[in-house]
């Protein structure tokens, strides 16, 4: 029996769909093909067939640098991942964007709790305790820079700055907080991407939802407080 994530995927697979920078398409034989969304139409892609290949594809960017934030808009290109079953698809997507499908399902079912940035900061201990000293103005700037979709992170922010409901950053466009908006489309298109635009699939999107500031953002707040 398919679990709740597989049911969500089944529904989404009525047509090709985007998940972050990945395009997911169903094949005529019931399998699935994943590729970088900017590689659509290319026929020179390296083919992989194991769910575990997703771990290595997601690990480094095109320049060979380690990707500590998997939802950063720097997924490498040039690959095609062929999978046979829905369970494999779920597993591979979880390797690409760990935890994001679970958070999406929790959000769809009304079970997702969001945590304001101030609460996340106040919870820290050890070397990160000092991050709570960040001012509202500094936090506004850090979040606006670190979390921006064009070069920072493709997640849709659902958390607020504080319990009063203050927007997490005034520096970000309102679409950054809208689960219906395709964050990957917010990037400044590269020339290769622009060339391919004419043949692009019209695809639905499963958003990469962000329910709470990540450890990387907390580390950035710490740096600002310490003046690094």
């Amino acid at each position, binding site marked *: 029996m398919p679990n709740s994530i597989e049911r969500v995927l089944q529904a989404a697979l009525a047509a090709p769909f985007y998940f972050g920078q990945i395009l997911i398409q169903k094949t005529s034989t019931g399998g699935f093909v994943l590729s970088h969304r900017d590689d659509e139409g290319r026929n020179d892609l390296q083919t992989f067939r194991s769910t575990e290949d997703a771990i290595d594809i997601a690990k480094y960017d095109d320049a060979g640098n380690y990707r500590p934030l998997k939802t950063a808009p720097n997924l490498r290109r040039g690959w095609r991942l062929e999978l046979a079953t829905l369970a494999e698809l779920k597993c591979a997507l979880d390797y690409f964007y760990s935890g994001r499908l679970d958070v999406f399902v929790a959000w769809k079912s009304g*079970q997702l709790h969001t945590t304001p940035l101030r609460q996340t900061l106040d919870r820290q201990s050890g070397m990160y305790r000092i991050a709570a000293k960040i001012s509202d103005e500094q936090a506004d700037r850090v979040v606006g820079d670190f979390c921006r979709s064009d070069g920072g992170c493709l997640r849709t922010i659902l958390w607020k700055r504080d319990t009063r409901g203050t927007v997490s950053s005034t520096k970000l466009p309102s679409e950054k907080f809208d689960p219906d908006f395709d964050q990957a489309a917010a990037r400044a298109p590269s020339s290769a991407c622009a060339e391919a635009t004419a043949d692009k699939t019209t695809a639905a999107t499963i958003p990469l939802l962000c*329910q709470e500031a990540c450890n990387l953002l907390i580390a950035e707040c710490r740096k600002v407080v310490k003046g690094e």
Partner: protein
Amino acid sequence: MTSDDSALLIVAHGSTVNPASSAPTLAHTTEIRRRKVFADVGCAFWKEEPSLRDALFLFDSQSVREVYVVPNFISEGYFTQTVVPRELGLKGRTTKRSDGQIWKYCEPVGNHPLMTDLLLRRAHQIAAGIPESETSLLIVAHGTDLNENSAAAAKREAEKIRSLGKYAAVLNVYMEEPPLVSDWRKLTKTRNVVVVPFFISDGLHSYEDIPALLGIANQLSARLRSAGRHTARQANSSHAARGEIFRHNPYAIDNRSLSYAPSIGTDPGVADIIIEQAANFDAES
């Protein structure tokens, strides 16, 4: 513990700079998932994704009644006692969520008695054919860790293996406090020496720092240069070359034969220990 409504969550540190840090945890997760011991198996990291906070949403409360949380850490300390419980909202050994799901916080991997067998097996494999009775075994930990007990854990393991009387000598050594790993020539008397890092994953310590302290890092660079495979700089910078240090055993150095193993946490046998720690939770309750 039943497989139809119990899940396993493996929690680990992870890293924002070292991709090898999470690799063993991901491998153990995949292996345990393959065995179908649990209805669902996930992992979460302090420094990587999914985060410890994401883990709160990994298991469907409709189908999963119990979640066994096993820390993939070498010892108890700041992370197992402060960070993991805080981030996961654990109230003690057992936590009942508002949706009725029960979370069971198990002992860290490094505490399990099977770690001793794993160390013995790895030491034997890395120096196959070399008589253990003529060999000194060194268990390396970091030392001076902030509020971590890995140094004490390495000492405990060395004592347990020493009591078996298999090796000529068994020593716990540290990178940053005496007895220092860099003093291995003075600390050991046998011709054969086997070194096993007591870490949960490979990384800068096992790839570069300990080899430098042992004096085998330069040997590897020279070998690679003479084989025309890499310059030393290329060898250090390429991802593939980082594990190269483990593929040239034994090292001949100062009339000694030194064998150097990958970190103990990379051993596939850790998957068995993770399952055992979950099973032990109920046995000890």
